[in-house]
């Protein structure tokens, strides 16, 4: 993934990968290297700081207990833009890092059409063309890219109202809110799918590795790319080892 954009981040990328060790055990695959994980948790922290401080201002009659966490309303208001900038900075680096694996392909449009099957777990493993990220992850990524751009533009206007005028502030504040609401909904789904929704996923962002079974279940094309083995065949072999009957022989529910 040596894009021109990556040349800028090559220094910090190498530095963090050197101090952050990723151990890949037998039966595991490297999913996210240390630099990716570092960025994820960096903007994750800023996301929650911005979320809590932001919602304390968004609707104080419900979230008034958020502002004391930051030292009161005035300080919350003062810190929030900086939390936001922190989020956008680190997410921006991640966006450069992920530009290639997040690019949309024809397979992703197909995946979106069968979103219902994904939600209801109709297939035991994902379709063979699902690569490093599935279309749902890509959609979320691009939503955050667009949302972050909206955040920065509208946020700067709200930050300096004396420069931009009251009309622009009133509009910006609505767009800023909409972006926050979309990301609030997104974070529930993101945390759910990475923890209890799809067990085995969380370790990709902690230790940086996933099991091979996780890879062929959720990202078969990526599994094929890194191991050179056919995911369906790997699944059948694993089934035989566990003496689980193949798909056709199993009763559907």
């Amino acid at each position, binding site marked *: 993934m040596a894009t021109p954009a990556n040349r800028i981040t090559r220094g910090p990328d190498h530095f963090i990968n050197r101090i952050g060790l990723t151990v890949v055990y037998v039966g595991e695959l490297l999913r996210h290297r240390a630099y990716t994980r570092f960025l994820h948790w960096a903007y994750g922290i800023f996301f929650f700081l911005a979320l809590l401080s932001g919602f304390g201002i968004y609707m104080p009659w419900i979230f008034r207990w958020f502002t004391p966490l930051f030292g009161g309303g005035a300080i919350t208001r003062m810190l929030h833009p900086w939390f936001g900038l922190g989020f956008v900075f680190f997410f921006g680096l991640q966006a450069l890092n992920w530009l290639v694996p997040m690019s949309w392909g024809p397979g992703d449009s197909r995946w979106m059409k069968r979103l219902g099957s994904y939600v209801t777990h109709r297939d035991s493993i994902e379709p063979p063309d699902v690569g490093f990220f599935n279309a749902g992850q890509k959609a979320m990524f691009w939503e955050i890219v667009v949302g972050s751009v909206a955040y920065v533009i509208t946020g700067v206007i709200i930050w300096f109202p004396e420069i931009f005028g009251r009309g622009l502030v009133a509009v910006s504040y609505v767009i800023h809110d909409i972006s926050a*609401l979309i990301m609030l909904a997104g974070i529930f789904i993101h945390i759910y799918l990475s923890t209890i929704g799809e067990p085995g996923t969380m370790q990709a962002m902690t230790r940086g590795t996933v099991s091979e079974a996780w890879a062929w279940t959720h990202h078969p094309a990526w599994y094929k790319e890194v191991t050179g083995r056919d995911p369906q065949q790997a699944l059948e072999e694993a089934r035989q080892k566990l003496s689980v009957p193949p798909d056709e022989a199993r009763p559907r529910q």
Partner: protein
Amino acid sequence: MSDRKTLQVQRISGHPGPVAGAGTQRQEKLCKLIDTTTCIGCKACEVACVEWNDMPFQPTLFDNTYQTMPDTNWNYWNLIKFNEVSNDDGSFQWLMRKHQCMHCADPGCLAACPADGAIVQYSNGIVDFEEANCIGCQFCVSGCPFNVPKFNPSTKKVYKCTLCSDRVGQGLEPACIKSCPTGCLHFGTKEDMLQLASTRVTQLQQHSGMKEAGIYDPETIGGTSVVYILHDASNPEKYGGLPKNPRIPIAFTLWKNWFKPIGLIASVMAFAGVILHYVTEGPRRVQPQPPVREIDGGEARKEN
């Protein structure tokens, strides 16, 4: 004010006849009436405001007019705006308007403010800022149709005219009223002031040839506790930033009151959604999972 209201006599022991003052209707709504037709631009009200509110002196900008400074400031709440207007019929007017907070019945600043207790409206109509609760977001600045609230960058708080709520609370008139030498400023109940204003407007129309003379008490924000008598009420804009139909941006009314809570509920539905998904569909486990041998009653169940 509240003390006098609660201490109004209701019953008297051994007293013949009805209680003195029984059935008295107290007019609560206060009003400042500004007659721009008798303002001479002496700026006594500006000085009185700065003095009473103990404002620090600040250097100002001279822009070759009689106006003290281009606009009001966080420590300069009351400013006479001097406007030289050439009318379409070739006539010329030199208009002076005392500019300050209008104390709207439906205040845009209060609607926009997200900080608990930073802006209050008293039952007498005064809209007051409680700087202790102000978070300095300046939403009030964009919510105000008259461009009144002003931000102090060093304290990170917003300030404006209080209609001398500290004086009014003690039964005194605002400082600006007290200082006016021409009687162009009046203070009393809203009802009395509107009556006085309409008498004056009739006088202007019938005896001074000001056919367009009228009262400025804009209905679009429910009226104001500061009312103007204008020579030409058909065009308040020529008095320097007095909008004909002041409005609060819908971002602070429709959006804040309706879409914000609805949007929040919609967002939190995502949380309900994932819980529901976990309960109905369950987690998606990696494949293959070991076969289920036995569950309580010995019946095998779905094994994914």
